[in-house]
């Protein structure tokens, strides 16, 4: 089965959405991502029982933070689908792409992306 | 026997006492309370003067008490532990005594969260139990709260306290009342009684322990104006109980205000005739002071004794 979905999606694989850290998502935006969607397993189907449920809570917290810092929480979304739902994945990818196109590019790009201002950890 | 106040004399001579309540205004004119004072003066033995009740800033209880006294009613100064530390309390108590105040009601006070200054800091340096105890110590042992001797002119108040039969844990309420009597409370005013059955159970326990022989209990009653008021108290006020039947009765009444007064009159008669150990009523006609004379007259408590 070959399905078409937007080519502008870059997939970052994780062992479980339960592994998602606020920093990973924020980092993606800081590096210039226009939008991020977190694709977790169906609720109730998590191999680690509650990984996807916890991920959703974290995603919601980051959405709030994105609103507060001016990036906009709408650029981040969590979806639940199983690995067998290829068509659903394509649909979500297209849906999210459409949403982000509507929102326009990551406002940080307009502000000029440059990572050299990031001091990083000194320890 | 020297009586500390007229209320003391009334109660100790075995007469059924009637007290009411006057809430000081949210401004600095005494005109309103003087009006209430005129209305009540022939019908009550004394009136409580609330101390920023529900934590809303109002004229000071002591200042309002001075006005009321001039107007011809013996005041019962309420003093909460919420707003004063032990220094301010003693200072105010001595000042109040010098101004002719003779009765003090000790209470914890509603939490400031309910009032118009929810961001204020509460004090609760001492609690109501300790206030009772310390007031007695001031009077009987001539000592400040710290234990230091009061050389002369110690305030000699008739000490009152409150009891709430409708708060929990129910079985400890009688214990706590007894504790207050041990501490030095001489008269007790109860929270508004709407659930008569529970109040009767409470009084049964009080009598079993003989507490009614050691303290004068005044049953708190409140005439209700509407079923909405009753429902609000039932659901919105902690430590109060209103049976559904009461709400229904007000709801079905042709004239709810009249019915509210009828209920209050019935309750007082019931308490006076059937509940042993109760030595008076405390009528809390909240924002409805003008109805008190009618209630007193209809319950056969008029004219007042002494």
């Amino acid at each position, binding site marked *: 089965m070959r399905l078409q979905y937007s080519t502008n999606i870059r997939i970052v694989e994780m062992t479980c959405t339960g592994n998602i850290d606020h920093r990973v998502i924020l980092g993606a935006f800081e590096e210039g991502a226009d939008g991020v969607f977190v694709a977790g397993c169906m609720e109730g189907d998590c191999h680690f029982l509650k990984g996807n449920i916890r991920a959703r809570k974290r995603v919601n917290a980051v959405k709030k933070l994105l609103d*507060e810092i001016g990036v906009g929480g709408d650029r981040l979304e969590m979806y639940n689908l199983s690995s067998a739902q290829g068509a659903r994945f394509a649909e979500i990818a297209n849906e999210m792409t459409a949403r982000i196109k509507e929102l326009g590019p990551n406002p940080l790009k307009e502000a000029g992306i440059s990572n050299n201002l990031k001091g990083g950890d000194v320890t | 026997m020297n009586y500390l106040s007229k209320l003391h004399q009334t109660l100790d001579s075995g007469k059924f006492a009637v007290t009411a309540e006057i809430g000081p205004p949210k401004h600095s004119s005494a005109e309103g309370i003087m009006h209430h004072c005129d209305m009540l003066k022939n019908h009550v033995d004394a009136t409580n003067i609330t101390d920023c009740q529900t934590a809303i800033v109002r004229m000071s209880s002591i200042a309002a008490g001075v006005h009321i006294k001039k107007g011809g009613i013996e005041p019962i100064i309420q003093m909460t532990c919420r707003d004063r530390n032990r220094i301010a309390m003693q200072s105010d108590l001595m000042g109040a005594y010098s101004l002719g105040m003779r009765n003090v009601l000790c209470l914890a006070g509603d939490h400031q969260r309910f009032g118009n200054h929810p961001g204020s800091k509460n004090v609760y340096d001492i609690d109501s139990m300790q206030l009772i105890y310390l007031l007695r110590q001031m009077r009987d042992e001539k000592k400040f709260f710290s234990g230091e001797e009061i050389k002369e002119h110690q305030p000699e108040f008739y000490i009152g306290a409150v009891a709430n039969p409708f*708060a*929990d844990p129910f079985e400890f309420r009688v214990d706590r009342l007894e*504790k207050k009597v041990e501490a030095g409370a001489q008269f007790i005013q109860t929270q508004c009684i709407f659930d008569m059955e529970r109040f009767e159970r409470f009084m049964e326990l009080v009598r079993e322990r003989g507490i009614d022989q050691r303290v004068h209990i005044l049953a708190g009653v409140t005439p209700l104006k509407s079923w909405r008021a009753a429902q609000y108290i039932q659901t919105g006020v902690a430590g109060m109980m209103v049976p559904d039947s009461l709400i229904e009765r007000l709801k079905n009444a042709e004239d709810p205000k009249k019915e509210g007064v009828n209920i209050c009159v019935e309750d007082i008669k019931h308490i006076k005739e059937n509940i042993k150990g109760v030595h008076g009523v405390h009528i809390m006609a909240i924002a409805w002071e003008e109805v008190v004379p009618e209630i007193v007259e209809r319950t056969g408590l008029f004219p007042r004794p002494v």
Partner: protein
Amino acid sequence: MIIAQQKPIQEIAEMIAEYKKVAFIGCAGCVTVCLSGGEKETEILATAMRIKRKLEGNPLETVTHTATRQCDPEYVEALEDVIKDVDAVVSLACGVGVQYLAERFDNWIVPALNTNFAGGSREHGVWEENCGMCGNCILDKTGGICPIVRCSKSILNGPCGGSQNGKCEIDKEVDCAWQLIYERMKKMGKLEKLMEIEPPKDWSTSRDGGPRKSVREDVMIG
């Protein structure tokens, strides 16, 4: 432990609005355990601030570091290298840590957290105040439940008339400490202890006595 909570982003942003290079200093003590000022929270806050500032056209350079403890001069001293060339420091420690930094360094030091209370963890993500730090423990008299801080009126001879169905008058979600004390004393067969009138508390050992100091001469060096 000390329970703290991060201040709103906007409030922190305003504190450092005029500075270009800012160090975000976390603390590996209590605030790491209560998830408000550890390494992770420090990095999230620094990243969020960088993004926010860039969007505002006022880019921010950040340095992040998490000290072992900010309430100990030994670890504060070690921050010198991290802090030396920044314009300001955001401390993600409790109020103690913020003050230790301000005492040691001449940089502008601001707090990222509100220090809430001394408490413990009830479940993951829920912390509750349990100790009023009054300096004169009375838990032996109250069955191990503190009325100083768990009763909204700090009543020592409770419960007051606002206790109903086991809850406090201030909120139906708040347990009445005196109901808990009553139940505990009943269970332990010690109800008669509650009949004793607890005398007024000497608050001079609490905050009311001024800043407190605790000294153990036997462990002092030198």
